[in-house]
């Protein structure tokens, strides 16, 4: 007995998954998710939902982390160290440094840090998604020579952000557990005291499991959207990440690469 022929419609057009499924499947089967994104109509929810989740996690992260006295103290210590260095270098007088520290204590207390963190999470979430969308779109256009709609790139970038959401949750938990600043799931965990101004520390922090996971997922999305080999897309995205990381660590804004 021959098996019944498959329904040609169901083969060519798979049943669309729910947003919840896509947000979860991006961890386990990103290829399937991006294939669906490529083949379906543009969906705002694919980038808006991850952005909102990222905002929520960012706000929680700011509140939890900056409510840890030890963390706030480490930030103060680092600020004081920076001022000391400035004084030693002759760029500031001791009086100016003291005044600056007083101002920092006044305007950069735990509450203000939380407020800045929450506001940063709100803007940063959208900025991150649209920046990554722009990069992916640019890579497709210029290097992979494939025209893709920007919103499709935004959907890939948005869904990819879910990896960072998970990374942010793990970071919160690690920070609470260790009580130390900069405790991302990276090589920085090996450090006793993380120094935001130390480039070696920043480079170690950049070697983050979730960054590599995100690179892989973003590359997967790029490959699916453009129909190019995954390896090529992975190389492109990795090189971009490497250049981005080295640039910001080099100019002293390594937090951007964390």
């Amino acid at each position, binding site marked *: 007995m021959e098996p019944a022929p498959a329904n040609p419609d169901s083969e060519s057009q798979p049943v669309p998954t729910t947003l919840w499924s896509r947000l*979860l*499947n991006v*961890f*386990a*089967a990103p290829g*399937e998710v991006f294939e669906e994104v490529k083949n379906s109509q543009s969906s705002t929810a694919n980038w808006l939902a991850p952005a909102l989740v990222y905002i929520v996690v960012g706000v929680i992260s700011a509140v939890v982390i900056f409510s840890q*006295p*030890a963390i706030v*103290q*480490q930030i*103060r*210590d680092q600020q*004081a160290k920076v001022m000391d260095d400035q004084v030693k270098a002759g760029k500031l007088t001791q009086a100016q440094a003291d005044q600056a*520290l007083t101002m920092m*204590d006044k305007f950069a207390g735990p509450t203000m840090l939380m407020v800045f963190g929450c506001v940063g999470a709100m803007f940063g979430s959208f900025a991150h998604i649209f920046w990554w969308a722009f990069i992916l779109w640019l890579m497709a256009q210029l290097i992979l020579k494939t025209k893709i709609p920007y919103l499709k790139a935004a959907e890939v970038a948005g869904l990819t952000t879910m990896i960072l959401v*998970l990374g942010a*949750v*793990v970071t919160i*938990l*690690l920070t*609470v*557990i260790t*009580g130390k600043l900069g405790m991302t799931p990276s090589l920085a965990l090996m450090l006793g005291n993380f120094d935001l101004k130390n480039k070696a520390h920043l480079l170690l922090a950049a070697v983050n499991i979730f960054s590599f996971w995100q690179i892989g997922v973003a590359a997967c999305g790029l490959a699916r959207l453009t129909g190019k080999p995954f390896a090529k897309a992975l190389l492109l995205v990795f090189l971009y990440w490497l250049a981005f990381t080295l640039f910001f660590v080099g100019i002293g804004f390594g937090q951007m690469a964390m």
Partner: protein
Amino acid sequence: MPSPKKRKKILILAAIVVVLVVLTLVAVFKKREPVITVQAEKVTRRNLTEVVVANGKIQPVLQVTISPEVSGEITELPVHEGQFVHKGDLLLKINPDVYVAGLNQAKAGYEQSLAGKTTAVANLEKADTDFTRNKELFARKLLSESDFVGFKVARDVAEAQLESANDQVNVAKAAVDNAQDLLNKTTIVAPLDGTITTLNSQLGERVLGTVQNAGTIIGIISDLSRMEARVDIGEMDVVLIQPDQKVKLEVDAFKDKKFAGTVTQIADSSKGSGQAASAYSSSQSQEATKFEVRIRINEKEDFRPGMSVTAEIETRYRTNALTVPLASVTTRPPKPADKKSGSTNHVSSATNHVALATTTNNVSDPTNDVGVATNSFASTNSDATDKKSKDSLPKLSEVVFVVEGDHVKMVPVKIGICDDNYWEITDGLTNDQEIVTGGYRAISRDLADGKKVVKGPVAAESTP
């Protein structure tokens, strides 16, 4: 049975969930150890000079109060306050009329006594002649015995009268001398070279002499060329003071200048100890016992008697001593191991007054160890009940908190001398160890062995 793809998804998501759950459980059940913000600095070697600070007044080394010995009206007063006078210069004259009259009266009495003496001599000569002549007559039985005895008695009476007359002369002579002396005392001259620093009386004023009563203090002459500071030192500190110790002096009137001095004299008895017992006991409950210490000022300056002075007496000195800030030393009950090891860390240093004061205070109220001097004084007068209850408390030992990573270790120390800022540590610490120096609340209450700390700026603390 789920497909391999679906199984793979479930496995990955399950792994993620497991990792998150594990991390969350660790974060939730992790021991919540409070982190105390402290300030820290390293133990360093310094030269320490222990000083006892006391307040007092500038006074001349030599100062004489001028009081008349005779009473009367001032008829001459050729000096004024602030005038320099030499020894022997006339200071004032008291109306001598009464004393001149007294002298004349005494002289007359003297003359009278001399006349009486002459009469007595003549009487004695006559009585003696009569006795001699009648003695021969009596020997020849020409005179009765009763008449002879009468002549003999007359001669003895004349002799006694002469002796009395001689005494009268001496009395009269002494009266003349006394009257002359009183007359002389109506003129008062300067007993030393010096400046009249006080002049209370004026011309024409009646003054009382010191013969019968305290008399009037007319003025004070001071030798301003040699000045000293007289300061009051508490009984806890006076035992540290010795002659020839160096002193730094600050006179309020000369704000920008410090003077050097030397301890010259330490009172053997406290101020007020010679007063009536009742008056003393009433004041004792309110005032600390003070001893006067005199300090010779080495420099010459335009000092005025009575100027306020603050003296820093250098009592003990240590070179290259291991030191920690005063605030870093506190007291805690000894750890069980320390208790067993004996009383080496117990607070019993009688030579260290500051430590004693602090410790006494801590014992009386372990929750509040603010160093209030009155508490330590009060404790010295505590009754037997208090002593008994204190004895039942564990003896406190002096400790510092050494920073080791992000924790502190409570280390018992032995303290030596101190200056305004630092304690000398004689045992318990080594050079370059990092110790907690603040904040006050952390050291006095919060910190304990093994507590987690973080170094940070001084937080605003409410003083308990």
